[in-house]
């Protein structure tokens, strides 16, 4: 643990995630017709802005939630193999996938308390919406994570990435990959699944938060999205290895570079998803999850399990 070579990635993890999340937010601003500098200006604006309280609120609980959100995103990213020299992931954990999922789940608890804290109707209803969203999308998400893990026979993301020599899981189990992308957007309550922060609720869980509080919620959401998108690389896109189509290593290149490129592809797919779909109402996203996504996820998991067992 005391070896500086292993500590360095840990120390750099949070700043790196913030930077990448900022870039993703800038790309998101461009795709919705804004300027790329908008997220940076917004960050500065929120930093110079006063924080704010509401009568009879529970600021402690709200701020714990607001702080847990970005922290959970960093902790989720910590087990993702980023192709760093030496070790694969900043923290090598043999049950990394379960850890990753646990951190994502903690994030929705954080949003719920953030919505609860201000003691105001719009924020409260925004907090409520996290509950059906999380419960409906955790199952497809968990199954989409488990399916590659079953194929690779390991809960260690690095092992899953290494098991894809020759054939990416995105090709071999495309439904799981698609489900992972959709449920990732839902886990980060982002894009079509932004109902907890919906405009119909004047910002929902964020409605009463100003200044740094608001920044934590908004930035934490992008950080969570990027962390979840990063996990798609080892799970479905072969981790730090170059594309298998190119044959045995004509490009070579450092693994972290390939992870970066693949992460960009995943983020581009997610940004495309937002362009495709409006924000879904609670009834709609619940219907989608229960009648379409979960049966698909179970079917995909069964197919993969049967093939692996045979």
């Amino acid at each position: 643990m005391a070896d500086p070579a292993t500590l360095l990635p840990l120390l750099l993890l949070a700043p790196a995630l913030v930077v990448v999340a900022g870039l993703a937010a800038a790309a998101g601003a461009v795709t919705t017709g804004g300027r790329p500098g908008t997220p940076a200006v917004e960050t500065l604006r929120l930093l110079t802005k006063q924080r704010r309280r509401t009568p009879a609120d529970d600021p402690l609980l709200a701020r714990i939630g607001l702080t847990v959100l970005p922290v959970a995103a960093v902790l989720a990213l910590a087990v993702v193999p980023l192709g760093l020299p030496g070790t694969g992931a900043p923290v090598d954990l043999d049950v990394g996938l379960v850890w990753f999922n646990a951190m994502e789940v903690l994030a929705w608890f954080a949003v719920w308390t953030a919505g609860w804290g201000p003691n105001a109707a719009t924020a409260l209803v925004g907090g409520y919406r996290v509950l059906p969203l999380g419960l409906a999308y955790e199952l497809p998400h968990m199954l989409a994570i488990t399916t590659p893990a079953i194929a690779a026979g390991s809960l260690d993301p690095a092992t899953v990435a290494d098991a894809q020599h020759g054939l990416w899981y995105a090709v071999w189990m495309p439904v799981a990959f698609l489900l992972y992308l959709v449920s990732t957007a839902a886990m980060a309550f982002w894009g079509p699944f932004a109902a907890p922060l919906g405009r119909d609720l004047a910002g929902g869980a964020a409605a009463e938060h100003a200044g740094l509080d608001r920044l934590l919620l908004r930035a934490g959401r992008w950080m969570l999205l990027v962390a979840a998108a990063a996990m798609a690389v080892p799970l479905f896109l072969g981790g730090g290895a170059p594309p298998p189509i190119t044959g045995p290593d004509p490009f070579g290149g450092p693994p972290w570079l390939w992870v970066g490129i693949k992460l960009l592809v995943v983020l581009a797919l997610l940004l495309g998803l937002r362009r495709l779909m409006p924000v879904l109402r609670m009834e709609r996203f619940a219907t989608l999850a229960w009648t379409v996504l979960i049966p698909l996820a179970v079917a995909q998991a069964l197919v993969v399990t049967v093939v692996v067992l045979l």
Partner: protein
Amino acid sequence: MTLLVLVAALGLVAVVAGIGVFVADSMARATFLLLASFVAVAVVLLAFGLTYLGVVVVLMMTIEMMIMVVFMVMLMMNPAGLEPMTMVHNRRGSRVIALGVFAVLAAGALLVPWPTSAPAPTTARGTDLMGPQMLTMAVLGLTLLAAIVGTVALSVSRGPARGGGR
């Protein structure tokens, strides 16, 4: 030694948060404190090298707290109020019983000669965390699915009875 201090501190956190569950004056705080208690225990398990167990406790318990919140919103007399919430009965009896339980269990913990061998969690970890857990995860997901479907069915079967007061 570090481990002892860490474990003692986390154990204390878990117990204090656990007591806080029944002292807190709002349901949101009670739920939060219960989760905090679980997370403290999970960190102890992680420190013991029981990685899988610790991580699964965090995962499952957070989901469980969310389910609890759903029902809390539906059922509680005062789920949202920050006003003092006391809904207790036979306080004295339960206190005596609880103290008795604690006395017996703590005596057991302190007096029984627990078998200890050289702890080697790192070797045990990783050896058989490959195969069986896969299946466990799959079964886990399916069980959860069945439970939630059942729960939803039970909850909504009586139609839109939401507007009623008591």
